[in-house]
């Protein structure tokens, strides 16, 4: 049994220690906001925060997350009021929306350490997140807007 804290709620899960955190969150805890995209930490769709740091949950063993504070996209805010979410709405960022959980988690992590990120900061922080709908220009604009809202 492994004890996890997801968005402040404790979960005891009976899973192998090497099971990726992504599949524990999705299939065992039952929260589906965190997405599967590539399984090899190449696309960022599965990004969550471990003690505030963005990690790719598809390539993080659940045992590595035990005892740490796990934040998923559902934990960004209870009501969509996180500055990133508000900015995402203002700029109508999502198209299919599938990658946006990961995009928003990477953006939130960036803004947590950089109050006014430059274009280069944004490129560096966000280039691990793929969007096949090509919403990059809006993501960039929304991150700058979120910095103002924060």
């Amino acid at each position: 049994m492994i004890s996890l804290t997801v968005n402040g709620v404790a979960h005891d899960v009976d899973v192998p220690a090497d099971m990726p955190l992504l599949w524990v969150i999705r299939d065992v805890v039952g929260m589906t906001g965190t997405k599967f995209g590539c399984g090899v930490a190449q696309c960022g769709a599965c990004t969550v925060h471990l003690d505030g740091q963005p990690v790719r949950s598809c390539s993080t063993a659940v045992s590595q997350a035990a005892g740490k504070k796990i934040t998923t996209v559902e934990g960004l805010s209870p009501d969509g009021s996180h500055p990133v979410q508000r900015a995402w709405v203002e700029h109508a960022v999502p198209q299919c929306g599938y990658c946006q959980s990961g995009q928003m988690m990477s953006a939130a992590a960036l803004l947590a350490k950089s109050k006014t990120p430059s274009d280069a900061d944004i490129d560096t922080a966000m280039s691990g997140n793929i969007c096949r709908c090509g919403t990059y220009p809006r993501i960039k604009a929304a991150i700058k807007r979120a910095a103002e809202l924060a």
Partner: protein
Amino acid sequence: MRRDLFIRTTAAYGAGLALGACERRPATVPDYQPSPEPSVTFAPNAWVHVRTDGTVAVLINKSEMGQGVYTGLPMLVAEELDLPFDRVRVQFAPAEDQYADPVFKDMTTGGSTSTQDMYPIMRGAGAAARAMLIAAAAKQWGVDPGSCTTKSGQVLHAPSNRSAAYADLAVAAATQKPPQNVKLKDASQFTLIGTSPKRLDLDDKVRARTTYGIDVVVPGMVYANVLKAPTFGGTVASVDDAAARKVTGVIDVVKISSGVAVVASNTWAAMHGRDALNVTWKNDGPGAHIGTPRMFADAEKLARTSGVVAGKSGDVDAAAGTLIEAVYRGPFLAHAAMEPMNATADVREDACEVWAPTQVQTRCRDAAMKITGFPAGKVQVHTTFLGGGFGRRLDPDYAVDAVEISKAVKKPVKVTWRREDDMKNDFYRPMSVNVVRAKLDAAGRVSAWEHRVASPSIVKRWAPAMMKNGVDFTAVDSVTPEFYGFGATRTTYADFEPGVPVGFMRAPGANWNTFATESFVDELAHAAGKDPLGFRMALLDPKKGARMRAVLQLAAGKGAWGRPQTPGASQGLALCDWGGSLGALIAEVTVSGKDVNVHRVVMAADCGTVVHPDIVAAQLEGAINYGIAMAMTAKITFTDGKVDQNNFYDYTVLRMKDAPKIETHVVKSTARPSGIGELGTPPIAPAIANAVFKATGKRVRQLPFSDGLT
């Protein structure tokens, strides 16, 4: 897929809409998320259900994959119904024939046709509901229906200063006779069409509450992953599943038509179990030993020596002028939608349910009927949101997996493919070899244009009836654009069949052929010693090119042709026509060694009436970025029958750091809406190539640029 090549049902179009059978059965919209929906009280037709709580359900027969139909189609209903847009509740229609697209004749979302096909139907559905609500109010008040108006979800009778909310009229309206004909609004009366209300899927998407196919949970469900043949058409010779069955969480191992499925208590256990399988394959399919280098040589030979005439005018051989020739080579490509292929099915003793992120609901239904032997009424297909489509989900193979596995294990099953399964089992964008020849006369005008194509056919498999005289119309789309006045023309198509499954990918045909056409037009401009913009302006057909002329002028002005806005950058230009819409695009590019950097893109488009300007802009932005991803480094290659690429580390796509600034401009129009979801994809690659030529003097005739720029 070009809508003008389907048989149109023109009867359904026009201002006065014949509604035909309006009495539909009450909505029993299946919804896998149990939700306390208010009961439907007034369903004047299949598309609109007015509820007593003041909301109106709009059923849409199109899949939402980011292109905005979840917002755009309900806008058409709300416009005609004079309904505040925030009262709309959208539902995906069930897979029933009454929800067939009027052109496709089934439920298909593709070819940038959703808005243009459904424009009169959704407006007519809203107008019919409005007419019946007015009739109910007029009867209650004892007044002439012609003296009533509607506004903001109410019927008004100004002479007596009376009003009634739709919610309060719903019960009475249900007893009114559906109108046979309704008059639609004139464009000057629009209050919603042409504005950009908040997308109806936006709040859920930023709060991660959207249910994609991969998120479906059915009580009692198990999870599956499928090991598929390493070569196309390969079959299972023998299975040793002893090790797989020992993996924690594995429940069962079953053979299905596409391979061997491992069924488990969670997705990871299923994948883990699949890795423990020991399967021997018979690699005896048509693509068992294919290799990429040979394909291009074979296709070029075919393009040069054979091929049926797909179109011609005048006599290209007799035309006078200096002959110029170039050969363009495009690779197979994978769609790589962010949501890997998946589906959920529950095959029970007497019925079957399928939950699928699909662009083809009725194909999914039909496939499930075939597997289960159930009649249509016993197979329900629930459409989920799609994590990208791009044409990949125009095939139902993932749903077939789910139905076959569920039938075998007698439980609800969600099958999820790995990214690698998706990469290696796609219906790929076809490779193509294009031999293009033209003659320039003494004045530098094009006197003849010949475009010879050899590529695998999509249509031959997907819709054989659409093959005409051996020509796959998608394969020759955009090879000889109508908007140009080329003089004599000849287009040929050779069906090159190397054994690779091919399918539709964003702007099929055009997404490659426009590269050949617009690169070659640029080559001709330079050969004639003319500016590429002026050369194109002069080349436009006086009549068929008139609409394009306005688009090109808009692009040239907004894009500052001849005055790059990026320091040190070179500009390239390309035109395209897709889905009844026209586009002109200017790219600003710098080249450093073999690195091509796209800094700024300006695109102008004419897509008729714009329903939602911000979604149109978003679609152009997205389609342009999709086109950049297709052109820069992406390719699918084969070695001894196997796909060489695996995942995003060796099938590389566009990322934030390489994404350009994009500006879009749309020509004002009151023409019927035409397609916008794909228009941005075809012109970006040739515009980049033309800018690369300007910058370096090197002509790229093979994509991706990482291969073609030497």
